[in-house]
């Protein structure tokens, strides 16, 4: 019988769970940006995004093994950076191809068409990986075991933060900063925001709308690939069915933060991560996913515009 929830170690357990929650939440936030950007620009729920995340983790897995076993790169840092870049490039290419094949022809069709196509793509991706890479769990040896103790509670219960968690926090923060710069300061970001507001007007003013939409998909995919690489590093295992649940949770995060809003997606991701870990610690570990799905339902019903989103006005 643990007394952790009772009060003796209350503070330490709570802080530990907050650290874990922020770590998972960062990953959800990175995936959620892909959902929110695509929804913002073409009003479509990119259902295959969760499976794109899973494929990116597989890219990372394959190249990590390739670099360490075939090319014998000993430096973990170098291997991780290389793997992350390769995974971003390949995942971006994959999503670019998917967008060309399955979504672009359906632009201007009725609203359900791209959603159905995306569900089909999600089935294709997960089953393709299952066939090509096998249905088993793919464990890798831990990248690093480094753990730092922040402080020890009065009875010796430690609050730990692992090097992996620090890497996740730092990488996420750096990427978000870079991404923020791209969206706010570059020509691409400007074109993208213009398309989000009014696609027809943007095209009249010389913005290449199709290219902007493709690049939006690719940027979202690259962020998901970072999340995929970090996911592999953090949990040390990946399997072909890993796309669905993180995908739905990241979508929940996007909705919670207000779909279409980029800071909202990150905020939503962090909140979902925190709620999930705290729920698992204090309420019931079995019903952890039920909690995440329930939040999705409750937010959509009572607060469809989310925390930072704009309310949707229906024009007649």
């Amino acid at each position, binding site marked *: 019988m643990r007394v952790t929830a009772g009060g003796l170690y209350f503070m330490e357990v709570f802080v530990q769970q907050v650290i874990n929650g922020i770590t998972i939440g960062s990953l959800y936030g990175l995936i959620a940006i892909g959902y929110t950007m695509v929804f913002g620009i073409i009003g*479509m729920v990119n259902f295959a995004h969760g499976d794109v995340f899973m494929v990116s983790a597989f890219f990372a897995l394959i190249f990590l093994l390739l670099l360490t076993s075939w090319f014998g790169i000993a430096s973990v840092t170098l291997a991780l950076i290389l793997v992350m870049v390769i995974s971003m490039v390949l995942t971006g290419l994959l999503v670019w191809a998917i967008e060309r094949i399955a979504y672009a022809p359906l632009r201007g069709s009725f609203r359900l*068409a791209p*959603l159905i196509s995306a569900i089909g793509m999600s089935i294709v991706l997960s089953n393709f990986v299952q066939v090509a890479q096998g249905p088993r769990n793919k464990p890798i040896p831990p990248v690093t075991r480094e753990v730092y103790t922040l402080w020890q509670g009065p009875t010796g219960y430690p609050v730990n933060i692992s090097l992996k968690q620090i890497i996740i926090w730092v990488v996420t923060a750096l990427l978000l900063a870079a991404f923020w710069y791209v969206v706010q300061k570059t020509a691409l970001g400007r074109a993208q925001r213009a398309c989000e507001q009014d696609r027809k007007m943007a095209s009249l003013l010389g913005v290449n709308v199709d290219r902007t939409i493709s690049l939006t998909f690719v940027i979202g995919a690259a962020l998901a690939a970072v999340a995929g690489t970090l996911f592999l590093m953090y949990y040390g295992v990946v399997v072909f069915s890993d796309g669905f649940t993180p995908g739905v949770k990241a979508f929940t995060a996007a909705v919670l933060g207000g779909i279409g809003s980029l800071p909202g997606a990150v905020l939503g991701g962090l909140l979902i991560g925190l709620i999930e870990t705290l729920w698992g610690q204090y309420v019931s570990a079995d019903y952890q996913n039920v909690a995440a799905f329930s939040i999705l339902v409750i937010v959509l019903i009572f607060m469809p515009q989310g925390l930072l989103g704009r309310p949707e006005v229906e024009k007649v």
Partner: protein
Amino acid sequence: MSTQAKSLPQGGPDFGQALKDGVIVAIIAFALLGPLVGLRTDQNMANELIIQNRLGLAAILSAIVGAGRFLLSAFVYPWLTARGRKTKAAVTLAELETRATRARHLSIGGLAFLFVYPVLIISLVGVQGSIKWVDNFGVQILIYVMLGWGLNIVIGLAGLLDLGYVAFYAVGAYSYALLAINFHLSFWVLLPVAGILAAFWGLILGFPVLRLRGDYLAIVTLAFGEIIRLVLINWKAFSGGSAGISSIPKVTLFGLYSFDVSAPNNFAKVFHLAASSAYYKVFLYYLILLLALLTAFVTMRLRRLPIGRAWEALREDEVACRSLGINTTNTKLTAFAIGAMFGGFAGSFFAARQGFVSPESFIFMESAVIVAIVVLGGMGSMIGVALAAVAMIGGTELLRELSFLKAVFGNDFNPDQYRMLLFGLAMVIIMVWKPRGFVSVRQPTAFLFRRKTVSGDLVKEGHG
């Protein structure tokens, strides 16, 4: 239009461009397939992951993809544009009318075929050999036809995208399983009970989502479906958890004859037939056929009632609907409830047929398959949904029969594992090729002077 026609190459296909396309696509394909297919991760004896080099296979696959792209650019696209230019203006009302008549004849012929199908199969391959054909193809496809028709009420008629339909299927299946085992009630008593319970759940889930439309509605229903499945997994005292519930009683022939081997009134024993499970399969076949036809019949009659008209009005324009005094709350809830009821019927049938239920049978993929059938068939078109179910379920079931391919690709080749992959590909290809589904004409039930068949593009099915 004219400028577009001019810019198209007039003198045959442009092979240079097509070749370039093909090469580029092959390179991209190799970049993606190279790692995913060419470098397969596997565990060795020491449980370490190692990489198995299959780059040759990846190269072959990429070449095939590139060649496919070359053929598309060189022959298929020019042919399609040429054909499109010829027939674009040719689709007239008369054309649509003949198509609709053809669909009507097809449905009558199809119905007759469905009723003689088991007899035909038994006379062709004998009693014992018929099991596979009646059960795997007949019953399996008809379950999806029924689910498709049930969901068609929600998506096709009322225009509400429900991605959690499998939850009602699960409610029906677990209602029958639990009530039959704990209270020893017969299937014929529990069939309506399961339907009512599922309809009740339809109301419960429908009520909170009344304000939502389109993608939001889709995601909330998806979440509801997942919640029900996760509760079934975790609430072990109620549902047996992921182990599921086994030895669910079989359906009886209205209590007169049983299909249990040990029962004194066993069907085969009473009629002095050789013992075989084929009779039960044939009986199940007719049972699900009648249930599916009941769904179709009720839907067709409902479309002519005020409530059915209200559903379709709601689909076309919710604001206009409300301003004309239609109670949108009731309209949406009845659509959810009636759709859910048929899902519940199908669920209790499923439980009785399998004799075993577990949360594994009610994953999101099932919902996606049912939605795919409804959309690919052409939302709102009964015959289209049936055709889509035959094509998608029958087609993927056929893969199980392709064991002769082992002779070609070696013994490791298992066509079964490509089932869902091909299913997903088919979903994407059909959507891109025919976004309106197989049957793209609709028969409005309300008309001004004369019944006219309209193109599916004119109705707002799937607009959210």
